[in-house]
């Protein structure tokens, strides 16, 4: 389906959206606002020097994480790359555990051992949070293989950016996904830039990046990512297909990031892209503003309600920062925990031989 054809359809009418209750629609909006407010607070603490490392913000892409994960059933799983705060919050991780992880605190989701790029919540079918571009794509294949092996009806939603499509292991994974009929859905979040290199300068494109799936006889679809209804309608078809036919699919959502590759990316404004481009997208395509307008038009939401949601999420993000600041850091002894299962549990295997080689 071409982009223009996709956008001529009103995705609110897709059954998966038409059947949403008012409360469910507001929950979708709240999910996006929640990510926006978390990320804005994260940017603040990063700029205040309160966290280390990198910070890859998701602002502008919220509709993709919230729309796709809102469709997850008990046996559907998610894995993504380093721009992972949105997906983490969307699957239900708390702001406290996520914010504390940014601060490197023991109360963080990874006990301060993973940092911004490495959030995990296996109890919520959320498998990270991966730092190496494209490195998660074989893991997503493995989740799908594991589901099929266990005879479970489910799907693995494996997210990647437009830069990751040029990594070799992605194509190895597509070949195996098709060959073995594994229920993995690769979701390309195309925000147009792989770090400072535009798609035009990094990728050979015919129709779109997802089209490359044709080489592996995998169904694909490109769609707009700014309309959460569209994200849901398109993803629903892919999940149904994975569940019913155990077949992979490649989706590509057009989206945009408001910040740089990471917050340390000074060239994203006026360097490799112009400020007007960013402002134009924010004004015309912001997924939160678009959905807000939509829900007001549908008479599901009032301006006051929106303000209350926004204020609530902002307050929670600020409170999460306070929680993180007041939380203890890991101790030096904690460095050696969570390396080996057998050592942590002090099993016989964990007590046999030397595992760590410090003096």
């Amino acid at each position, binding site marked *: 389906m071409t982009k223009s054809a996709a956008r001529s359809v009103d995705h609110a009418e897709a059954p998966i959206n038409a059947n949403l209750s008012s409360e469910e629609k507001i929950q979708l909006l709240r999910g996006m606002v929640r990510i926006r407010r978390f990320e804005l607070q994260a940017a603040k603490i990063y700029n205040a020097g309160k966290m280390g490392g990198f910070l890859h913000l998701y602002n502008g892409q919220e509709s993709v994480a919230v729309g796709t994960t809102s469709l997850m059933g008990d046996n559907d799983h998610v894995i993504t790359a380093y721009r992972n705060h949105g997906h983490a919050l969307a699957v239900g991780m708390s702001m406290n555990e996520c914010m504390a992880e940014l601060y490197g605190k023991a109360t963080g989701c990874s006990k301060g051992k993973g940092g911004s790029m490495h959030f995990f919540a296996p109890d919520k079918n959320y498998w990270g949070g991966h730092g190496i571009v494209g490195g998660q794509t074989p893991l997503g294949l493995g989740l799908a293989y594991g589901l099929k092996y266990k005879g479970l009806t489910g799907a693995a939603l494996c997210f990647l950016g437009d830069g990751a499509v040029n990594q070799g292991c992605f194509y190895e994974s597509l070949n195996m996904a098709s060959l073995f009929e594994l229920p993995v859905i690769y979701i390309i979040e195309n925000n147009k830039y792989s770090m400072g290199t535009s798609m035009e300068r990094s990728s050979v494109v015919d129709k779109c990046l997802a089209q490359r799936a044709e080489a592996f006889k995998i169904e694909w679809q490109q769609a707009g990512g700014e309309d959460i209804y569209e994200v849901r309608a398109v993803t629903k078809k892919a999940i149904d297909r994975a569940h019913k036919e155990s077949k992979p699919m490649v989706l590509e959502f057009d989206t945009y990031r408001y910040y740089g590759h990471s917050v340390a990316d000074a060239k994203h404004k006026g360097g490799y892209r112009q400020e007007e481009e960013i402002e134009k997208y924010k004004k015309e395509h912001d997924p939160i503003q678009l959905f807000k307008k939509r829900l007001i038009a549908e008479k599901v939401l009032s301006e006051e309600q929106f303000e209350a949601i926004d204020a609530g999420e902002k307050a929670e993000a600020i409170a999460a920062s306070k929680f993180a600041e007041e939380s203890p850091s890991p101790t030096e002894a904690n460095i050696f925990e969570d390396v080996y299962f057998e050592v942590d549990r002090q099993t016989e295997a964990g007590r046999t*031989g030397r595992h760590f080689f410090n003096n």
Partner: protein
Amino acid sequence: MPLIEYRDALNQAFAEEIERDPNVVLIGEEVAQYDGAYKVTRGLWKKYGDKRVMDTPISEAAFIGMGVGASMLGLRPVMELMFWSFATVAYDQIVNNAGQIRYMSGGLINCPIVIRGPANGGTNVGATHSHTPENWLAAIPGLKVVSAANAYDAKGLMKTAIRDNDPVMFMENTLLYGEKYEVPEEEYLIPLGLADVKREGTDVTLVAHGRAVLTALKAAELLAAEHDISAEVVDLRSIRPLDEATVLASVRKTHRAVLVDENKPFCGVSSQISSMIMEQAFDDLDAPVGRVCSLDAPAIYSPAVEPLQLPTPDRIIKKVREIC
């Protein structure tokens, strides 16, 4: 006790663990219908079918990563690399994903995977196929590394590796696959992290792993017969975790050590052992620790010369006689 080949001992370990645990699955290139490039998985596909023994395309990065992803969901994949040398194309999946996922998730995720295959030189296949990456991998906290010198150890260690809840890198050897050794019919396990004294001696300790153990044993025989030197041979069996106590006890008894290692010398496994002996048994030493490694150049193809690049009994004897 029946004498069986190293490859068949591994084969028995796989069959027993497949039958014991429905989550155990063998995955790799040619492991199923072809019966394994080195016949290690011979007959298993026929017996256990597609689900438990699975052929993959030549895509090491993706299939190793697939195994890692599946292990996160509770499977126990036993992944074959046709050569451990091919780990180079799957290195990100092994090091960053298998090796780091437990740590980075604060202990929320386990990776009970075994990655196995031959890791040796000496077969005239050139440098690309002759790497011995046990030292590369043992340098990664989060991974475990095992190397079996005979069929008995191979079976017992493999069964333990499959049941272990951490990622275990299992080093085999194409030159050992056809070697026979006594393997009991009843079930047994060998813990990881436990070295084995393969020959007792009093004058010098030879520390080795994998096929270098056999080279060290040959050297020990010749040292006894021709030079009246009694060499003790310690087989590490497991490199990480490492049984330091057995090595140190032997050195404290013999007061001399020569380390035999098919790794190249720079940061080889023997470098770690040497450092450990120096730090923990310095006062017990009567001579500097010596090392006999593979000669420090890419593996040469020439069939006439390659055997000389690996540790040989002659080089071991020469090194021992320098300090005894």
